[in-house]
């Protein structure tokens, strides 16, 4: 319907010229802006700064990424970081959803848990990373712990909020058929909380990636964070930026996957 309407609008003869020009540019606006930014960066680092100790040009970063990939070093670091992220993220999601459900299921439990959850969510728990390394060593588990502490709270808070905002009208509709509390939970509360839960999981991606890198900065044998610290200590700016770019791409890709998943799982929230 709306597609037809806009199609009709765009061929309307009374359409003013500027309004017609902009929509044709819109699909390329992002690409143009990124290209222009990269060109500016390249020019700045080559012409103005011209010192590889301070800033690497995009072309140098691309070469560094290719070299790291060729030597296999990139994959080693990526694999270590990915493993830390996935293990921590999955555990945090399971625990976070369970925590959120526990809080939503009883007022007493909520009152008991709320101050801890809100308090720890607001605290920069990343500062605890050195402590985790002290406890569990510089292996993957210290990073997994950092990821868990960063991801669990947004997931729990969103799950709880989603379950609590269940529409009373819908609950009453099910109740009119004599639905049990279990049926009400499975048929109304849970599906209506899913968009909120996905939003929490999406927030968790960025926070989890930060957790991995910061955890590795404090002490590790391998990983993208370790690649970044190592390169910084050696003043190897192209390798440092290579690590950052790979992380950024991973974050963008994961978030994009999530948006795709969101469209498939909760099509009713979009129109």
């Amino acid at each position: 319907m709306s597609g037809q309407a806009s199609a009709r609008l765009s061929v309307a003869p009374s359409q003013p010229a500027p309004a017609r020009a902009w929509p044709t540019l819109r699909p390329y606006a992002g690409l143009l802006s990124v290209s222009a930014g990269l060109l500016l960066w390249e020019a700045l680092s080559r012409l103005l700064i011209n010192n590889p100790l301070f800033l690497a040009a995009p072309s140098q970063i691309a070469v560094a990424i290719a070299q790291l990939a060729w030597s296999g070093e990139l994959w080693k670091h990526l694999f270590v970081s990915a493993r830390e992220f996935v293990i921590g993220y999955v555990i945090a999601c399971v625990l976070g959803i369970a925590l959120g459900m526990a809080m939503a299921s009883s007022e007493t439990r909520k009152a008991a848990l709320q101050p801890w959850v809100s308090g720890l969510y607001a605290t920069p728990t990343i500062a605890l990373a050195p402590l985790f390394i002290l406890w569990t060593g510089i292996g993957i588990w210290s990073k997994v712990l950092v990821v868990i502490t960063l991801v669990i709270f947004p997931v729990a808070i969103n799950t709880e909020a989603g379950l609590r905002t269940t529409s009373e009208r819908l609950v009453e509709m099910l109740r009119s058929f004599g639905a049990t509390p279990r049926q009400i939970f499975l048929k109304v509360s849970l599906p209506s909380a899913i968009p909120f839960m996905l939003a929490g999981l999406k927030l968790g991606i960025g926070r989890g990636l930060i957790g991995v890198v910061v955890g590795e900065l404090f002490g590790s044998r391998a990983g993208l964070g370790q690649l970044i610290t190592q390169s910084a200590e050696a003043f190897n700016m192209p390798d440092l930026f290579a690590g950052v770019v790979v992380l950024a791409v991973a974050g963008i890709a994961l978030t994009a996957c999530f948006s795709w998943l969101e469209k498939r799982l909760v099509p009713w929230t979009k129109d």
Partner: protein
Amino acid sequence: MDQGLKERGLSDQTLMSPKLQSLALGKTYGTLDVLRGIDAAVADGEFISIVGPSGCGKTTFLRIVAGLETASSGSVQIDGQVITGPGTDRGFVFQTDSLLPWRTVFDNAMVGPEIAGRANDATKAKTRDLLKLVGLQGFENYFPRQLSGGMRQRVNLARALAVDPRILLMDEPFSALDAQTREIMQTELLRIWEQGRKTALFVTHQIDEAVYLSDRVFVFARRPGRIQEIVPIDLPRPRPLSIKRTPAFVALVDHIWGLIEEDVRSSVLNAET
């Protein structure tokens, strides 16, 4: 009101084995008398509308029949069994459509059978037939957001009928629709109801809607909520929309309006208190 007038619309058979019977039903919220001494019987296959001013307890009465609220005194029986809670032996059509936004039209209509544990091939086929009956053939896989208000209320109705209820309960189902859609939905409801002649209780503010649809109209009064008069509607069926302009129809509407006018006036004037 005198007893003879109250029971004018009841045949002897109705009194012997009513589908629905309300016995000295009362409901209080704290000190507020919402309903007091509701005695009424509804025969199998009857279409009953309940009208009355705001605050007369007509919706509360319907919700007690649905089992969504409990009576403070007295009881309501369906086929001689006292109602103790909600269940799939009744179908409730809500004022707002109350459709699950993540379910398709078909899956929404299947909610009742699912809850009853009867989501089998037979009920699925029956639900498809019902959706066809309410005029939603071809829309089974649409989501609620893709439907108009009138279509959503059709799903609402199909969902209530899908459990094959002993009694159909409707709480102002057309009140959110525009005037034209509302008229069409009234004729549609009668067309659908003629197919199975389920016993129906229909709560509305609109007197002409009540007269158009019903075999009898229960006119409620407020403070406390009670049945003021039961008005039999002796208009032939099927009823075309044009029946609304006949003198007999207009006389019935005028009569009912006369019964509740004073109550409505005082409730409008005291609306803020």
